[in-house]
């Protein structure tokens, strides 16, 4: 891996920013250069949330991801808005529970993950985001259990330590797809 430009997007409350932060922390633990930049504008108040995450072997220049290598789309407006921006040969992971249409592009790799349905079936509350994270890690060949534990310790505060187990379960579920 040299540089991975990722864009996470969905509704507020789906844990978009959390998922991005997890990936950034995982990169930091693995001695990569990372940046995480959330959308904070009026669109955030309107219900959509997105964040740019860059994980790289070299220092990160601009932290803004306009053309992602990987797009995580957790709702239809996100796919509509960012599908065309993905670089040719890039990857789109879509939550197919909430996005009924198919990706129109034929020059990108697409994974449809019914993450919201899976979270509900497995009593994982609103952890569809981490199911997608599991799928993402597997597809970029970056899945290892030690790495997961260390990164989760960073993003889950001590007060919510009991949430670590379910997050792990969600990630594993995604990685098994």
């Amino acid at each position, binding site marked *: 891996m040299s540089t991975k430009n990722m864009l996470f997007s969905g509704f507020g409350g789906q844990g978009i920013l959390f998922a991005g932060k997890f990936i*950034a*922390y995982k990169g*930091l633990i693995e*001695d990569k250069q990372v940046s995480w930049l959330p959308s*904070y*504008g009026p669109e955030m108040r309107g219900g959509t949330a997105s964040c740019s995450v860059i994980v790289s072997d070299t220092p990160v*220049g601009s*932290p803004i991801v306009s053309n992602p290598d990987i797009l995580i789309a957790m709702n239809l407006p996100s796919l509509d808005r960012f599908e065309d921006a993905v670089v040719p040969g890039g990857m789109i992971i879509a939550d197919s529970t909430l996005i009924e249409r198919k990706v129109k592009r034929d020059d990108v790799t697409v994974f449809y993950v019914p993450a919201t349905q899976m979270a509900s079936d497995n009593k994982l509350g609103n952890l569809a985001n981490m199911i997608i994270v599991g799928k993402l890690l597997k597809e970029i060949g970056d899945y290892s259990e030690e790495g997961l534990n260390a990164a989760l310790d*960073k993003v889950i505060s001590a007060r919510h330590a009991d949430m670590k187990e379910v997050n792990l379960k969600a990630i594993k579920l995604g990685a098994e797809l």
Partner: protein
Amino acid sequence: MSDKILMKGNEAIAEAAIIAGCRHYFGYPITPQTEIAAYMAKKMPKIGGTFLQAESEIAAINMVYGVASAGKRVMTSSSSPGVSLKGEGLSYLAGSDLPSLIVNVQRGGPGLGGIQPSQSDYFQSTRGGGHGDYHMIVLAPASVQEMAELTVKGFELADTYRMTAMILADGTMGQMMEPVSLDLDVKPAPEKPWATTGTGMAREHNIVNSLSLVPEELEELNFKRYDRYKVIEENETMYEEYKVEDADIVLAAFGIAARVSKNAVDEARKMGIKAGLIRPITLWPFPKAPFKAAAEHAKAFISVELNMGQMIEDVILATESKRPVTLCNRAGGMIPDPKQVLNSIIEVNGGIQ
């Protein structure tokens, strides 16, 4: 893994201020810098410090004046429209030769403007911000690590030269998270024999004031202040050069614009265009020397800014108009894409040879 943690730029400023010994923070919330106030609200009570949400920005800056008069490290933070409200206070701080730290996490203007990142307060910051002849030391971080380091540096410079230091950031720098090491080197604050800390019936009263009705005396104060500014220009100018030594086209950019520009420089180099970047870290004093030196070999300069072209005037002055300087910009909360900057480079280069 290193001892680095992920932090938002705004949080890094707040934590660095505490590490630098600041125990007094006064502010009023405004996007995109509210995390600074929120962090201070959480931390200050736990360490015996003061966090106070003032009734307005004007009140906050005058509270800063009060604590600065008593010789303690003090700060306030805001975003563009809020900093305009502080303008009077900035001038009074300068007129009273008081050290303080002000943070401006800029957003698009003018007026109430928007809440997206901008660099359109360059003129306001580098030319003082309020009425009268004075400067602030203006520091422009381009990473979360620098947000922390320049905050400490800002307090030190403010104390050393008895003046206001400003961190001039933007919404992106405030909101983004990056790895940061908080193992910061802090020098102890100097003695402040001028502070109004009570005479203990043992010395004359100290007076902190910006009123001076005798013009000869006020002129003398201004002359002395500018003598001090000259020392700062000589000793405290900071900048970063990136691939400048053999560059035909030299970009000038600070903060987030510099990061975008770095990407563009790398892309241009891949195409065989010798591009480079000078990144001012102090906007006042402006780093004139590297621009003057680069004008000896560069064919042209491009000022990359998130405004309608403000720093470009300092670039033209610093290069003594020896080479053409063009502007590559977005405004109103928009950020130039590396491709836009690359296109500017190609255009100024007269195409790709």
